[in-house]
């Protein structure tokens, strides 16, 4: 079964961004730019936080608008990303209503979740979780 990252309870998010740092660390670097997950305030910190993750759509709009097949649907939901094929057209960023196709300003290509769950291992409050896609 394909897995995806789910936001279990956004109200437990404290905005520490440990997940974003973890996602970048997964690639061998420190910092934030390689993160495929994004946490920002929901219009001021008093209102809490918004956690943006790829929800692994069964018919992903980002793949539909990709002109080079850099993004292709993954069996069971979600997409696979082949950076070598990507021309940096930005269509995927505009197509995802969640804003989960994040943008890498250095390489001019999207940052696409690989559904590994490394970020969830560093969420101290069980806000996010890697789980099997069902239904």
């Amino acid at each position, binding site marked *: 079964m394909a897995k995806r990252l789910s936001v279990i309870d956004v109200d437990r998010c*404290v*905005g*520490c*961004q*440990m997940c974003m*740092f973890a996602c*970048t*660390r997964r*690639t*061998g*670097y*420190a*910092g*934030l*730019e*390689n993160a495929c997950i*994004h*946490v*920002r*305030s929901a*219009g*001021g*910190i*008093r209102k*809490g936080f918004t956690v943006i993750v790829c929800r692994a759509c069964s018919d992903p709009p980002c793949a539909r608008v990709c002109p080079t097949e850099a993004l292709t649907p993954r069996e069971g939901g979600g997409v696979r990303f082949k950076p070598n094929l990507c021309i940096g057209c930005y269509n995927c960023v505009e197509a995802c209503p969640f804003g989960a196709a994040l943008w890498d*300003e*250095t390489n001019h290509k999207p940052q696409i979740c690989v559904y590994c769950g490394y970020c969830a291992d*560093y969420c*101290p*409050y069980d806000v996010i979780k890697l789980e099997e896609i069902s239904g």
Partner: protein
Amino acid sequence: MLPHDPLKRILYIDLSRRSFEVRERPELFDESLGGSGVGIRLLEEECPVNADPLGPENPIIFTVGPLVGLYPLASKTVAMFKSPHTGNLGESHAGGRSAVSIRMAGYGAVVIRGASVMPVYLVIDEDGVRFRDASALWGTRSSYTTGSVLRVREGGSGTRSIMRIGRAGERLVSYACVITETYRHFGRLGLGAVFGSKQLKALVIEGKRTLPVADRRAFRQTYDAIYKAAVDSPLMQKYHELGTPINVLPLDAIGALPTRNLQSGRFEGAEAISGESLAANYLGRRVACAHCPVACIHLAALRIPYPNDPYFYKTLMLGYDHEPIFAAGSMLGLDSVPGMLQVMDEIEMQGLDVMSTGVTLAWATEALARGLINEADTDGVTLAFGDAAGYIEAVQRITTQPTDFYRALARGVEHAATIYGGRSFALAFGGNEMPGYHTGPACHVGWSVGARHSHLDNAGYSLDQNALKKGQTLTPEFIGETLLNEERWRQVLTSLVLCLFARGIYDRETVLGALAAAGFAWDAEDLERLGAETLRRKIAFKQREGFDFGALRIPQRIIETPSPGGPFDEAFVREAITHFAGLV
């Protein structure tokens, strides 16, 4: 430092010329790491002797360090400037997203020079600085408005810091603060007034990048050890659960909670304003600084009905900590939580330092009761312990300054007591208002000598409390020496801009391991050298600007009001201060 680490880049901004440049100065960071260590060296370079703290010659320096963006809890930005409040070293630290944003924008330090001829705010990213018109924001009644406007107007949500001042900073109140991410502050020593003097309303800094590490495997291993210690060990638990107000009840129990201008160390309302009570009745959300899993920031949700409009309510979300609870609670005799939170909210709206404001108003309350001032001075406001409404009115007037008396209050309790009398119960040390502890002599010695920063906080209150637990008698020599050693080590931690709540996690070995993976081959001796040198430089800067250990005023109130550490006299405190000064 690793070759591609952007830490070495210093952004110099000139507000007078509306220009900027980036200079690479790797040697500064190779020698002094960042934070306090680099900050004091930049201040020595930038701040002329006897500079007017509110003149264009006073620089604002922000520094971060090599561990920011790499490891959890390296989350503070150090601000250095000449303080308009004390007239010497201004050093203030804040978290939020400030440190990560500066590092991710690709800088190790930001230096702001000159003054603008009109209100501006700055937008900073890796490409440099944009100067934006802030004239429409100048004078807005609430500091919250500036945050709301810039949040929508500027980009980078989630990877930016928005530092801003309120009207208190515009009006040059000497203890005006700079607010970042709504709930964190460069609180003490008047950075807000320095912003105001430069007509600098706010600063938005944004960035998102990767940072190199020396050894990926070692980096991840070190990271995991620190992360595990932060979330699993009891070292951080108290900050996570009840937060810093966990101190309120234990301090009250031993008679160390400053109450009604330190007329007492016990407060009958302590239970009501305790961390336990706030968590049970008001805690609405906990939040964290960027890259900190601890989430010590506690927000109270307070629902306030409109008195003449049924079914209209507003809900405040207000950050609380031990120090604001002391300053706006026990020190003002406020045992009503809604009252205390509304005083804190007004202080936030004005953009004042809550500790200095509370201590100054506590003195004013006693001065009014003793007839040193009258209601003409207070503009008709009745200041009485336990009366929140009067304090809210007074807080507004500290900003608007309708009378000479409020103009004096706007410069702090030391200044006001010099004019109106009542110095014996004006609770300031070296010109800065006291924090929320009256544990014994060591805490007061610590505040008198502390070169570190703004909170004045230091190892003093734990010395007092440890001595109490163990039944030891403190000597002036022991206090002076212990405080000095601890202060030196804390210079290392603040040069790395580590949150001091994490000092139990970042011991010497952990610090060296973390630095190694970041490309800094340091040893224990290097750390000792940096700690001693940074402390020496900071004290030298203070002395250069007129600070004198021998001339420190010891408020009689701390001697008169019994502390759990037992009776002590002024000579004891002075002896410990002299001992500290001799060892530096």
